[in-house]
């Protein structure tokens, strides 16, 4: 079966003043449909870069990123947006909620992008994350954990095949973090969607199908039920 996400020999560098920093070095991996994958590693190991490449928020210097048969390197900015609207739900560490919109309106945004705003569905999603009674609240009136739950509802708005979560609990206390992670994984599992979860913590309570560890821009270890060493690069 064709994997949903295929990352092939991807390298990415950033220029910082006069130096060049290698964020990813010849990374390859494959993620199947419905898998829950956790990517962990210390800060600066390339986790967010990898997620950005899969979300078509950035382009690799070398290699290919193919998601649902789409080669992301070939996409124009407009088609990359369409790809994100149709295929990807994103949960950011800083939530990235629009502050002047209510929780409900924030959840509606991805639907508007696809031209099919559905207020009922947005309310259901808020209900799913336990915020049905706070739909009219603006982000500033919500706690960090609540904001991240709104972000999860927003990520699920268009029922994407791939959910990307970049350190979703990075700004939360342990209790809130536990609740958010539980919500995220259960929501994704219930829908049979693929979750790519980036965290700097090696251990979380949630069970995942695959766990990748990144260090210095390379995958140093792969573990999990469906792990196949030949799909992943190692130093």
């Amino acid at each position, binding site marked *: 079966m064709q994997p949903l996400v295929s990352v092939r020999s991807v390298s990415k560098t950033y220029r910082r003043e006069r130096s060049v920093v290698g964020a990813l070095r010849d990374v390859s991996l494959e993620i199947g449909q419905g898998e829950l994958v956790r990517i962990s590693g210390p800060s600066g190991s390339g986790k967010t870069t990898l997620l950005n490449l899969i979300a078509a928020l950035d382009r690799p210097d070398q290699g290919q990123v193919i998601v649902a048969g789409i080669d992301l390197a070939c996409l124009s*900015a407009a088609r990359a947006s369409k790809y994100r609207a149709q295929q990807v739900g*994103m949960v950011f560490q800083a939530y*990235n909620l629009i502050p002047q919109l209510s929780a409900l309106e924030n959840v509606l945004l991805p639907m508007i992008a696809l031209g099919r705003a559905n207020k009922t569905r947005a309310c259901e999603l808020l209900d799913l994350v336990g915020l049905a009674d706070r739909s009219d609240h603006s982000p500033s009136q919500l706690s960090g954990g609540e904001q991240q739950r709104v972000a999860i509802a927003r990520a699920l708005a268009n029922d994407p095949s791939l959910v990307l979560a970049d350190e979703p609990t990075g700004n939360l206390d342990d209790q809130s973090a536990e609740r958010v992670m539980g919500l995220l994984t259960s929501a994704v599992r219930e829908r049979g969607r693929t979750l790519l979860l980036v965290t700097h913590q090696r251990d979380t309570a949630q069970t995942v199908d695959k766990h990748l560890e990144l260090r210095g821009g390379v995958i140093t270890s792969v573990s999990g039920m469906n792990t196949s060493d030949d799909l992943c690069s190692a130093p």
Partner: protein
Amino acid sequence: MIWVKLTFGGFGRRFVEALAATIVLAATGATVAASLMVVEGARNTLSRAIRQDRPDVVEVKSRFNRALFETPRSGNLPPLTIPVYEPLIDPAELETAAGDSQVVKRQSLFRNVLSGDSFLNIYIFGIDPDVERGLSSFSLARGRFLGRGDHAVAVLDQASARALGVDIGATFPVRKADGTDLQLTVVGILDRLALRGAPPRSAEAPSLSPDSTFVSSGAFVNIETSEDIFGRDSLTDALAVARTASDVPALVAKLREAFRLEPGIFVTERYSQYQRKVRDFVLTLALFSTMSVATVLLAGSFASNLLHDIYVERRRQYATLIALGFPPGMGIAPAIFLGLVLGVAAVVIGGLAAHAFVPRTFAMPSLMADLGPTEPTIDWVVGCSLLAIAIAAVGVGLVSTALRLLRQPLAITLSEDNL
């Protein structure tokens, strides 16, 4: 509603900056509008001068001879043939001197015409109807104007027609130089008339404009008919139309040279006065344009900077919209719309302020006296200029944000700490 909130909501402390940017842009707009209104007014004045004064037209006139005109004619005298211009202009000599410039020939006669039991003074103009209509203005009330090939027909102004008691189709006699009468048939009645280079009015005659010091009435006939009445083809006056206004000095020199031995023939031009008006207009343009440009550069850049700050603060919002699947154009649409609304509001406020406070008539500085007072005008040129300035200011403020969003990876913008 979401788009309204995305565009105008959540300004926070940046609301003051948005307001300041609008006020500065409005003040800029008002200053620029006022300056451009004066420039437009000056341009209109100059255009009017070109249209009315016709600097490309040179007048060649023989002297109006009052002594001959005032020949005693009291008592029961027959109608007299009274030449009012002396000496006369030789048309061949005029054509030669004018070269390739267009010559508009005229014969202006003054006749005592039999009207009922008395005589009526009336001006008779022999003209080339096709050429004359390009220079003078004739407004027909009834009938038709003169045409080429017409003979012994006349077009009268309403005042003369009324005084003579004639209408379309009627005839009236005019004594020819040989002593016989020529019956002129009326084919048209004029209700308005503006003869370019009209002779001075110095005798009682029916008049359309009683207060005018120039002749504003009379009977118009083809020049062939007037030659028949006058008994000669000599001209009383003529106009020479230069190919361009700048050819006028050379044309005037040639005409003066040709008629240097005829002290009673005067060659006059308006080109010199027009040139002084042009100089005044250029000065006006330079002065007020400099003022506008300086204002735009100083205040416009300040407003742009304020807008830039607003956009930078909202940059991550726009990036988030694109990251959520909005096309890049829609992602930055709130920024563009915000800028346009602020810009248009500033233009409207500035334009209205300028319209309200700029005087209806602007007296030019004494150094620009030749152009005279101008009427500041707000028109589409001024409006478009204001709009262009507002759009430019907004564009400059937006450009770095737009480039960042459209040219750089979204990941970089999303990692900025300013949502």
